[in-house]
């Protein structure tokens, strides 16, 4: 079964407190910069998604992600 945008968003909200980010700040429009997150954080999010949702996002799909919506779309595309 393919993963939904909601499922990925929920998973990210579940993970972000350990990054020191408030889950309510995680919206589709929020940029990594808004959330004070960087590429290492994205790698960790993708590892958690691969581990928990079984979706593996290739590195090329992780390039140039600006918003949480972009990040989630990359997961849904590969789900």
């Amino acid at each position, binding site marked *: 079964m393919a993963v939904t945008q909601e499922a990925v968003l929920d998973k990210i909200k579940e993970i972000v407190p350990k990054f*020191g980010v408030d889950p309510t700040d995680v919206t589709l429009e929020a940029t990594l910069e808004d959330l004070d997150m960087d590429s*290492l954080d994205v790698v960790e999010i993708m590892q958690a998604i691969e581990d928990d949702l079984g979706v593996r996002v290739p590195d090329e799909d992780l390039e140039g992600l600006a918003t949480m919506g972009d990040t989630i779309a990359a997961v849904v595309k590969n789900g």
Partner: protein
Amino acid sequence: MTDQRREVVITGIGAVTPAGFGVDALWARALAGESLPHGDVAVGPDPTEKLTIKESRRLDRFARYALVAAREAVEDAGLDFAALDSTRCGAVVGTGIGGFETIDTNIEIMREKGDRQVPATTVPMLMPNAALAAITKDFGLHGPGHCVVTACATGNHSLGEAKRMIEYGFADLVVAGSAEAANRPLATAAFRAMGAMTSKGMSCPFDSRRDGFVMGEGAGIVILESAEHAAARGARAYATLAGYGASNDAFHLVQPDPEATGAMAAMRKALAEAGVAPGEVDYINAHGTSTPYNDLSETKAVKEIFDSPPPISSTKSLLGHMMGAAGSVEAVICVLSMRDNKAHPTVNLDEPDPECDLDYIADGAREIEINTVLSNSFGFGGHNACLVFQAK
């Protein structure tokens, strides 16, 4: 040719030790002569209490200790880096091992969940220069950076190399010190296996019962500046870092040379650089690990150099052996000893070893005029580093 090297002064101090957060907790514990609880490990306070989640999650515990201690030292020195030329401000922050917790934890993740789940932060957290990176980024220090790794001599080497940077004009100010956090199953098992840690659960340097060290954790950081730089910004200078002497035993991987040739060379070089005769030293802060080998060879070395040795005490009797962090924390102790003219005791020295017959200040803190201090550190690998401090 006259020596044109610049004078280097200490203008700030910070520490996280098994005595708690801060220099005041450290000095209170030291002067009280309070012994550690029974056991072979003395942990520090939880540094995440002083850091944000964002700061903590990218730092191994050793680097967290270092950052907390550095912030205390910077505040103590009254520094406003925005008002200084950041390209002239550097850092030398070492460690004995690096991010042991990160190695230990992430190997388990790899075994349990496979290569693809190994955290991307593994390398930047375990690398020995991670504390240096955290501190230089936190304060925006764009001058020279260096990470010294010489086991239990790391702290003294770090201050010594920072002294070199300043006295030869490569920097005007250097945040200098070291940190250690090796209380993890692999490290404690390994140190126990080599017989380095006490099986009796007590740090008792120079005592006949000594059988190894108690492992300690934490960090010590000092602010070193050229005397002119400190004066120009109206800073209080606690002391001068007057002498640095380093040598290698080139004898054995972990056992000190029983003749202490290397240790004596380092002490003599430090005294010579400071222009201090042995008779002028008021107090020695010993390496004093509570291992059978060190305490005997260090005693012999001191007796060889000093016709009438001054009082000497072991900070490791109070805090355990903070390994890579030890020398830096002991530098903080030396500064405080000169500030207050008080030397802390060596605790648990109740059954003296007849071969260890110096004045180890075994009977409680002592008030003595302290203007010149020698501090010894000797590390696995046979690396020796000694420092001489002089009161301002």
